[in-house]
C-alpha cells in the first residue's frame, strides 16, 4: 500500500525507535492527569502505588504481577486509607 521508500526512510526508522518510549511517557502522564490527580484529591495513593509498581517490576520483571500489585495497592489506599480525601 505504501511505497517502500516510505517504510524504510530514515525518519520512520528513527521514529520507530523514539516514538514508543516517548508516547508511553505521555500516556503515563495522560492517564495520571486525567483520572488520578484531579483537583482536591490527594496524590499520595497514585505516588505510592506507582513506586510499588516500579520496585516490584524491577525486582520480579513480571508484568502481570507488577500491575496487580500496583492496582490492588491503589484501590486499597483510595477506598480505605484515603477515603474521602
Amino acid at each position, binding site marked *: 500500500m*505504501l511505497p517502500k521508500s516510505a517504510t524504510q526512510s530514515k525518519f*520512520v526508522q528513527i521514529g520507530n525507535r523514539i*516514538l*514508543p518510549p516517548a508516547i*508511553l511517557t505521555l*500516556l*503515563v*502522564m495522560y492517564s495520571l492527569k486525567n483520572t488520578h490527580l484531579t483537583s482536591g484529591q490527594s496524590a499520595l495513593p497514585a505516588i505510592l502505588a506507582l513506586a510499588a509498581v516500579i520496585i516490584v517490576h524491577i525486582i520480579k520483571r513480571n508484568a502481570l504481577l507488577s*500491575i496487580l500489585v500496583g492496582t490492588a495497592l491503589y484501590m486499597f489506599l483510595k477506598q480505605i486509607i484515603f477515603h474521602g480525601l
Partner: protein
Amino acid sequence: MVREVFKTSLPVAFGYLPLGMAFGVLLQNLGIPWYWATAMGVFIFAGAAQFMAVAMLSAKAGLFDVFTATLLLNLRHVFYGLAMINRFKCLGSGRLYAIFGLTDETFSLLSTSEVQIGDSRFVVGLTALNHLWWVVGCTLGAVLKSNIEFDSTGIDFSLTCLFVVLLLEQWFKSRDPKPILAGLCAGAASLLVFGRDHFLLFGIAGVMLTIPLIGKDVKND
C-alpha cells in the same frame, strides 16, 4: 500462541472491563437500549470518543461537530500508525482490522512485545481480544446498570500501571533517556499551552518535532 496473546492482553482486561462498564451504565442512565452500548463498543471502539459521543448526542450536536471532535480526539492514531508501519505491512487480510482496532494500550503492547514482527496472528489476536474485553464491558455495564455491588473505585489505575510497566521494559531494552525526556518536555509544553483536552495529540506532535534533533545520535540499523 493463544496463551501468549491471553497473557499479554490480561492487564488490558482489568482496565477495559470496568471502563466499558462505566460507559454502559452511562448510556443506560440516558434511557438508551442496552444493545447500543454493544454496538458502539463494536463499531466505535474508542474510550474517550464514546463518552464524548454520548455527551454530544444527548446535547443534540450536529454530525459535523461529532465528526470534527472525534477526529481531533483520535488524531494521535496517525502517529501510532507511523510507528506501526513495519509491523502492520505484513499482516495481509488482517491489516484493516488491526488499523481499526489499534488503541493506546494495543499500540503500547505491540511496540514493546518481543514477539516476532512478522507474526500476524499475534497482532490480530491481541487486537481482537482487547476489543472483546471492551465490548463485554460496555454490554455488561448497560445490562447490569448500577446493580453492581463491587466497589471498583481506582481499578482503572491498572492501565496506568500497564503503561508504567511497558515504559520500564522499553527502558531496559534501550537505556536511552532521550525519548523519555522528549516525552516529558513535549507533554509539559502541551499541557501548558493546550490544556488537558488535547494534551496527548499535541504532546505526540511535539515529540515528532524532536525526531530530527534526537535522530542524529541514534544508530541506524
